[in-house]
């Protein structure tokens, strides 16, 4: 009879789990594990229950004060105590497994991810600091003829912008490593956009893997789609996307597989989208469910990118005017 009940439960789970999707199941289980009631009451009780029960059973003073039905029930189900003892290590292992899995699907940046974000934001600042402070060296100071010379030496917005993109690339590589996906390889490109199409590749990482020529001026590429929509686009499965009738992946990116993200960088002050970041991972790393998280992360970089972009444009303007 009990076996049939287990069989029913098993069938129910087998039906429910694919319906709920493993992503959701792990997230729900993780939420249960993180609940204070579980952490403070259920888990300690489960751990302490077998030893406490045996201890109480051995001490006559406690045994006589507790209702008799507890002891009759325990004597009847003594196998349960042994079972809990045996299952505890398995249970702890299962808990770790759920936590690890849930982290992959999480739409919240874990604490180590937050430290990583700080590191990624610091990295371009350190590069800028190096440039500023190395200009103070007497050998360099003597060479400066005017304030313009100093300004040109310390502000290199095109380069600084590339440093920010390198930092974004490293951030996602490191985040993948933290999410147990160290084999995921990323490719990051910053496109300069004009009339909603990419007109130039500003920088790309790794620098040994340059984007194909065809992607420039391609109206059907991911960057063009993201800029037209003025929203971030996430493609969870590039192969599947390519097969669809309304594919948003450029036909020039035929060898690409895995997942991709494209983030348009809008400048409200001039009411245009001058840049778009395209990040491709060869593994299914980017998830639509974590869209808000990616937006939160990239927004931090967006402000820094726009400052450097603005400076670059102003520098070009002054150069053209001959200032």
């Amino acid at each position, binding site marked *: 009879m009990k076996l049939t009940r287990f069989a029913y439960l098993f069938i129910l789970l087998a039906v429910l789990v694919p319906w709920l999707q493993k992503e959701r199941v792990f997230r729900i289980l993780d939420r249960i594990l993180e609940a204070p009631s579980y952490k403070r009451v259920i888990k300690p009780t489960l751990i302490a229950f077998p030893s406490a029960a045996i201890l109480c059973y051995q001490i006559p003073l406690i045994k006589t004060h507790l209702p008799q039905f507890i002891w009759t029930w325990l004597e009847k189900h003594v196998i349960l105590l042994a079972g809990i003892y045996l299952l505890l290590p398995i249970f702890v292992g299962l808990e770790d497994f759920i936590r690890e899995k849930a982290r992959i699907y999480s739409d919240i940046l874990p604490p180590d991810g937050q430290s990583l974000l700080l590191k990624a934001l610091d990295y371009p600042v350190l590069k800028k600091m190096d440039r500023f402070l190395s200009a103070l060296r007497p050998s360099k100071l003597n060479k400066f003829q005017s304030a313009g010379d100093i300004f040109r030496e310390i502000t290199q917005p095109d380069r600084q912008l590339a440093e920010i993109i*390198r930092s974004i*690339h490293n951030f996602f590589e490191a985040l993948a*490593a933290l999410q147990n996906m*160290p084999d995921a390889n990323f490719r990051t490109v910053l496109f300069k956009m004009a009339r909603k199409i990419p007109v130039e590749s500003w920088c790309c990482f790794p620098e040994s893997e340059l984007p194909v020529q065809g992607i420039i001026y391609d109206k059907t590429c991911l960057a063009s789609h993201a800029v037209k929509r003025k929203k971030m686009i996430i493609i969870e499965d590039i192969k599947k996307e390519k097969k669809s009738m309304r594919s948003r992946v450029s036909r020039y990116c035929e060898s690409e597989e895995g997942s991709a993200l494209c983030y348009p960088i809008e400048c409200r002050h001039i009411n245009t989208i001058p840049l778009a970041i395209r990040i491709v991972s060869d593994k299914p790393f980017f998830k639509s469910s974590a869209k808000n998280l990616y937006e939160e992360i990239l927004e931090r970089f967006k402000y820094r990118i726009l400052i450097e972009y603005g400076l670059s444009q102003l520098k070009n303007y002054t150069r053209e005017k001959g200032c």
Partner: protein
Amino acid sequence: MKKVKKEVVKPRVILGGSSRSDLKKEALRWAKEAKRESQLWRKYFAMSK
């Protein structure tokens, strides 16, 4: 069969020292440091509670 070489776009800026292995090494170092730092933060918050 002769392999057709694809034309590539040269980016505006090339920083150098950003090959796949360089970036991977750097990212793994970042991940390691971030893990250690977050543990320190956790310890700090646990102590200040």
